[in-house]
């Protein structure tokens, strides 16, 4: 189906150097590798989202492609659909309008017919969608379903998914993977970018491993996961240390009846030194929970941070109470992408910069310290954040938030979403260190394994409320916490 050997440079940096990918028709092919390995870039080149450097080669269905003229429109016509990592929908348009955007057949739109076709196709392949929903108001799971259905609607014979599970809850992941298998059985070729080996095991027929912009290994059945893991990191995987952090009898975060949008009213206490997880299928109010605590969305109820009432305070006031907030999407509200690492690390941090005149030496020293502590690459404090890999960008956000003085409480929303294994270990270590240092940590994540590895106890939210034990599940006392939490998340177990 696809035979590619491609090279790509950004701003003088080679991110892909003659990386190869061969995909057989009707198979599910996993493209794996650490963040920054070049996976996203490779699939973007194949799908015509970005243009490859001259000198490479690309053949689709055995037909050689002229790389210099390859663009999204031609790729779509050749039957290549792509669902990108951060989505590619125009937020104010409906699902059906997004589906026809840039692919209109003629000047007159027939949206009703297209909408009906999309809804029917979605039901057929097991991805129900509402064609008239506004794309920007969909949760990540629904937005992704809409993009997949739109790609299939355009006759995609090859469907590329760039880290599709990063934004999904476990139950949604299982559904998506089953759907991908079903699509492959119907003859659609699938390329899935991921760095989760359990997904590879669940869905892939063949595997290509990228490391540092080059293809280092390919695997055919029977897949041996240990060998794939070694190929990804170039060494054995690090083992997670279990948190053995003492919980203190002092409040870090106290929520009473907090309601906001989907969030219907939550009471929750986090003590200093404690790591508390919030699990739940995306769209059950956990997004609003983080925004409400940070003061970024208006909410009902009361909030105390470090024992101090913070209900009436604005964002800056809550930060001053000792709050740190790691926003769920580093690209929307986490970082100034066009600014340097040093400026992002000092954003809003008047304790570093000084109140009015900026102490540039202090900003630089602060940046160097965070870069060393979190192993941020590149190590140049003046490097522009947009040029960093997702994992390194996330480390910049973590570095800024966790280095606040007098931390009482940390709200970390999806702290390792779309981040490679090495960075995950690093970020988890920082969150544990912050707890050991006396902060209470609230981790909101769609990744159950992350919560189980990281937290003392985990509460589950469903339809805006905590379900099951209001104190949550204490991980140290639970056997098979994954199954218990999964049942609560889906509503299969009421109490």
């Amino acid at each position, binding site marked *: 189906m696809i035979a590619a050997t491609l090279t790509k*440079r*950004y*701003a*003088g940096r080679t991110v892909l150097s003659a990386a190869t990918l061969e995909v057989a028709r009707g198979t599910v092919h996993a493209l794996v590798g650490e963040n920054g390995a070049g996976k996203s870039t490779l699939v973007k080149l194949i799908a015509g989202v970005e243009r490859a450097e001259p000198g490479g080669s690309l053949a689709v269905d055995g037909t050689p492609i002229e790389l210099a003229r390859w663009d999204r429109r031609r790729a779509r016509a050749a039957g290549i659909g792509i669902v990108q990592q951060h989505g590619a929908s125009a937020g104010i348009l409906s699902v059906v309008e997004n589906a026809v955007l840039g692919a209109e057949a003629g000047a007159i739109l027939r949206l009703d017919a297209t909408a009906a076709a999309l809804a029917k196709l979605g039901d057929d392949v097991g991805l129900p969608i509402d064609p008239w929903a506004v794309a920007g108001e969909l949760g990540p799971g629904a937005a992704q379903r809409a993009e997949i259905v739109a790609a299939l609607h355009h006759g995609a014979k090859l469907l590329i998914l760039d880290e599709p599970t990063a934004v999904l809850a476990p139950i949604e992941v299982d559904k998506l993977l089953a759907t991908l298998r079903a699509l492959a059985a119907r003859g659609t070729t699938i390329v899935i970018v991921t760095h989760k080996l359990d997904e590879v095991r669940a869905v892939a027929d063949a595997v290509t491993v990228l490391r540092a912009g080059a293809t280092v290994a390919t695997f055919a059945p029977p897949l041996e996961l240990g060998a794939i893991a070694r190929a990804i990191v170039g060494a054995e995987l690090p083992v997670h240390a279990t948190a053995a952090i003492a919980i203190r009898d002092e409040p870090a975060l106290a929520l009473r009846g907090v309601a906001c949008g989907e969030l219907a009213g939550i009471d929750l206490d986090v003590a200093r030194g404690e790591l508390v997880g919030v699990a739940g299928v995306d769209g059950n109010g956990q997004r609003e929970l983080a925004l409400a605590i*940070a003061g*970024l969305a208006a909410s009902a109820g009361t909030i105390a941070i470090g024992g101090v009432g913070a209900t009436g305070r*604005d*964002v*800056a006031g809550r*930060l001053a109470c000792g709050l740190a*907030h790691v*926003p769920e999407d580093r690209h*929307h*509200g*986490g*970082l*100034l*992408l*066009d*600014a340097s690492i040093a*400026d992002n690390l000092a*954003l*809003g*941090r*008047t304790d570093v*910069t*000084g*109140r*009015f*005149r*900026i102490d*540039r030496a202090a900003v630089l020293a602060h940046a160097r310290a965070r870069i060393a502590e979190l192993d941020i690459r590149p190590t140049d404090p003046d490097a522009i954040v947009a040029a960093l890999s997702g994992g390194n960008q996330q480390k910049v956000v973590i570095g*800024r938030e966790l280095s606040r003085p007098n931390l009482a409480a940390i709200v970390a929303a999806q702290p390792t979403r779309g981040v490679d294994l090495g960075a995950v270990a690093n970020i988890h270590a920082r969150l544990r260190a912050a707890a050991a240092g006396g902060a209470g940590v609230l981790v909101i994540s769609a990744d159950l394994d992350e919560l189980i590895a990281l937290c003392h106890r985990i509460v589950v939210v469903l339809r805006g409320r905590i379900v099951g034990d209001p104190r949550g599940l204490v991980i140290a006392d639970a056997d098979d916490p994954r199954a218990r939490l999964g049942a609560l998340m889906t509503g299969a177990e009421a109490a």
Partner: protein
Amino acid sequence: MNPRRELQAAAIALLVSVAIGSALMLCVGRAPGEVWGAMITRTFGDPYLVGQLLYKATGLLLCGLSVAIARDAGLFNIGGEGQLTAGVVACAVVGHALPVGTPAIVAIPACTLAAAAAGGAIGAAIGVLRVKREAHEVITSIMLNAIVGGLALWLGNAVLFEGGVTRGATIVAGAELPQLPLAGSAANASLVIAIAATALVWWLRARTTWGRAWLAVGQDPAAARSAGIAVDRVRIWVMTGAGALAGLAATNLVLGNKHAFEEGLGRGTGFLGISVALLGRLHPLGVALAAIVLGFLSTGGLAVGDLVPKELTEMLQGVVVLAVAAAGPWMLRREARA
């Protein structure tokens, strides 16, 4: 984009503009070399024309800074015309209302503050409408241009104009800014005000948390907000500052040259400020250079009026802005490829 690329982009844009200008000159049957040569030698060979260039550049610089700081904060201030007009009226009214014999040390700051405050008030209104009522600043600033312009003319006709001409009362002698000694040209000490404003904007942007806050709001309001920056307050203050800068240009016209409110005084300077800000790529030093370049095109155009029609050099000012707008993205692509 890094500073070297910014400079390259501006240089390429200027070269393209020169090429297009040359083509236009050929169209009207003139040798481009001759016209460009005459434009440079006549303008810079004549102290009077150098003075006129500086006079033009002073107003353009202040109005350019006004657009640039608003743009930094993600706002488009098209209201320079109205803010400048408000400044002109306030400056002239205060300058006349002062007792005769008020010393310069009192009169000049009073009139300067009045100009900045009047412009700043218009800017603040635009900022508040944007923040509190979500009215887009492009719409409100254009509308306020019309409202302030009409209001100024009505005020003039009803109260201020004297002796059957569209000119108000003369300001007190103490409020007059000294002329620069350039052959009786209009250039005056308000150039110092403009340079001080440029330095202040540069310092705020590069060295203070205020500047960083307004740049952050311009780059990503959501990230700024989540980092604890009061985005709404920053927007209102930046629009107030932008209005004040445009209003300050009144000192050049009223205190430095006409010494009174005249109908149509400074008309077009506010709009040209947009071109200056874009050509200067929003950087204070770039804006200063751009003000000189556009001032030169305007003054030089008059100087070669016998060789080419003055409309040709007026077109050139538009060509420069188009070329800059096209050169920015082009340099970004080159940077991405390099």
